[in-house]
């Protein structure tokens, strides 16, 4: 299986978007790259851009490895992606509106009912509940992979609390500091307006009862959360308060924050806390991260939660395979971005096929994330395959399977010099009351180990700056 290389294609000829970079890579001395890499690491460490890996003692703060060679997309490639992303997110929002409303799609038999109602992330509290301006997913992170010159697949939709956008922004800043010359040789679409776009989106979603200039806050689980850096980074860039559950309280259906000048009303909460922990009175009673009564304020329409509660039923791995049909159902259009062919093990014929082809498939847990609980058939040994066979038979509904795709590769700094490594891309899609906003680019994740297809930062993945070339 030969992967498509974004710089050299499959035939070794440098593709146009990469011509300048290829020339530069040919000229640059290897020790310069290594020196810059160290410099970048120092910058990240000093600024404090860190993340936590759960389950690792003494690793409360680690750096995500940063690769100094950018990943480049041509303008027309990005155009296709952008249109596809908009279309996909529109469909996701229409689907959520329908599921918590009239449920036409279930009546039409396009999505199996049990996939919704027996899904632990389905929130019955949201049934018939209007959300401000009828939009559920305001911030989506859509993971996209590429397999050849023309084909991008959506690998995963993230419609709950997608993270990573701070890396998109910081990677760009650091690249501009380290490689001003390389920048001046390209025309790169900026990403630095993302915080403004996000704030405009969030403000547009304030409930009608809010003041003309609504108060927006970012709700974080706190400093021990793996994405805490991102939370504080974004709050800073947006110029909004970074609050924890204990900073908020609800009185007579209105949410307030505790300030040095007394209580202040809050209109929009960009929450980076999962549904389960939002409100101990409605969800997990042991949650210390949430705000008692928040759901009642939300249901009364006095506050916007961003994203809405219950969006998990649009992004779990079991619903994923239905997305193309969901999209056609609501928009009457063909999906611009394809799905990776997926076997739903809940369906007996699919299960049979999967069990017969475990050696060549990737098997994922429906509710897994972060690259945990995955089987990559071609790289697994007999014991791992046997273990997954058992798991599949015991709980077929808990799994999906996909072909092992040759993710595209990009030139990457490794110990032996510059070599191709597999990448994916997470662009961020903002859906406001007025329109959809997408800044050109996203977070490129790279699997630093040779041959590895796992790009997750918790599993040794790194990141790259993503350049969308201007026309």
């Amino acid at each position: 299986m030969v992967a498509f290389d974004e710089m050299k294609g499959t035939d070794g000829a440098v593709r146009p978007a990469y011509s300048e970079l290829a020339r530069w890579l040919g000229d640059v001395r290897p020790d310069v790259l290594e020196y810059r890499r160290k410099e970048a690491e120092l910058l990240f460490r000093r600024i404090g851009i860190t993340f936590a890996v759960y389950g690792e003692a003494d690793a409360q703060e680690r750096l995500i490895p940063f690769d100094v060679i950018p990943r480049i997309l041509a303008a027309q490639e990005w155009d296709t992606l952008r249109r596809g992303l908009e279309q996909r997110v529109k469909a996701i929002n229409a689907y959520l509106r329908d599921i918590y409303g009239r449920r036409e799609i279930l009546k039409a038999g396009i999505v199996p009912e049990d996939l919704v109602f027996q899904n632990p992330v389905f929130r019955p509290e949201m049934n018939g509940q209007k959300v401000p301006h009828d939009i559920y997913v305001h911030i989506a992170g859509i993971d996209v992979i590429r397999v050849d010159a023309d084909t991008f697949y959506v690998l995963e939709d993230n419609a709950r609390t997608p993270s990573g956008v701070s890396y998109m922004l910081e990677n760009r800043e650091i690249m501009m500091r380290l490689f001003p010359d390389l920048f001046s040789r390209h025309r790169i679409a900026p990403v630095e307006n993302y915080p403004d776009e996000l704030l405009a989106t969030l403000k547009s979603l304030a409930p009608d009862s809010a003041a003309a200039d609504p108060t927006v806050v970012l709700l974080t689980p706190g400093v021990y959360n793996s994405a805490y850096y991102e939370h504080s980074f974004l709050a800073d860039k947006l110029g909004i308060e970074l609050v924890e559950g204990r900073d908020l309280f609800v009185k007579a259906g209105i949410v307030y924050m505790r300030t040095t000048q007394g209580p202040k009303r809050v209109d929009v909460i960009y929450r980076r806390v999962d549904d389960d922990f939002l409100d101990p009175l409605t969800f997990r009673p042991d949650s210390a991260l949430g705000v008692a009564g928040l759901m009642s304020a939300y249901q009364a329409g006095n506050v916007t939660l961003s994203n809405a509660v219950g969006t998990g039923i649009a992004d779990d791995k079991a619903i994923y395979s239905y997305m193309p049909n969901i999209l056609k159902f609501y928009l009457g259009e063909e999906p611009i971005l394809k799905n990776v062919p997926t076997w739903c093990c809940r369906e007996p014929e699919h299960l049979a096929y999967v069990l017969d082809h475990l050696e060549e498939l990737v098997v994922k847990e429906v509710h897994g994330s972060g690259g945990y609980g995955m089987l990559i058939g071609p790289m697994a040994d007999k014991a791992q395959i046997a273990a997954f066979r058992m798991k599949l038979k015991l709980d077929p509904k808990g799994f999906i399977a996909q072909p092992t795709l040759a993710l595209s590769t990009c030139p990457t700094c490794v110990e032996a010099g510059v070599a191709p490594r597999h990448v994916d891309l997470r662009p961020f899609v903002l859906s406001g009351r007025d329109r959809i906003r997408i800044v050109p680019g996203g977070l490129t994740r790279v699997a630093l180990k040779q041959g590895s297809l796992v790009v997750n930062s918790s599993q040794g993945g790194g990141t790259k700056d993503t350049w969308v070339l201007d026309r």
Partner: protein
Amino acid sequence: MLSRTADNLYWLARYVERAEYLARILEATQRLTAMPLAYIGETNEWESAVATAGCAGAFFAIHDEANEDTVTDFLAFSSENPSSIRNCFEVARANARAIRTALTIEMWEAINTAWLELKRFGNQPASREDLARFLRWVQESSLRFDGSAYRTMLRNDAYWFSRVGVYMERADNTARILDVKYHLLLPAHEHVGGPLDYYQWSGILRSVSALTAYHWVYRESLKPWLIADLLILNEQMPRSLASCYENLVQNLDRIAGNYGRQGPAQRQARNVRARLQNARMDDIFQTGLHEFITAFVEDNNRLGSAITQQYLA
């Protein structure tokens, strides 16, 4: 501003200030104990250092004897002492991390760099030179943080709360030195120690970095009552109680002005300042230096709780 943010800023400033103060105490004690006994008398300066740091209780709960090793470890490195220099930086950094957005880049880098460097200094200095280097470094880190705050922060409530933290901590520290050493500062006619105390006096001045200042202000050899005057009533001396309260009143008033509302914290600060402004050293000695200091410590604690209730809770 979020109450929690104000609380974090306030304590961040206090812990950084406290770390510097602890370093000064250790330095001054080190110096004093290096003297021949004939010059300082038979006192246990290490025990007095623990008392001046305000953690005698915690110290004797785990150590039987106060000596150079146990006290240095406890005040500088111990994880069992919540106010050791190490813990001060740990807590300061944790506070800073929780409110990254309220700090300037320079402040964050100052505290984060200090925290990263702290790891380079082990838990056990190899020599007195190493320890001395460490103590210098603590003071420089604190200065860098304080300087970054002063030079880069917007003059708004975030800055004022951080300043209030600094001056509360300073007032507390200076009062504590006075509380432990007051018997050395009584006027000559009540005094029994004699010339032995000279080095004690300079030690006190060193621990509040005021030895040079003393000479500039009084142009005299060290006199205990003048030292007391410098530390309590002299408004030019940045670590005096009077100067701390002048600054506390100013910063609390700015907060009140900005918010358009006065409260118990402003009233309490102004009361204490008035008392310090109206006091004369003679009267203080007359009614008792120790009584005066004890009353001040209580007043200072009252202001602390007023600030917490009014703004930080």
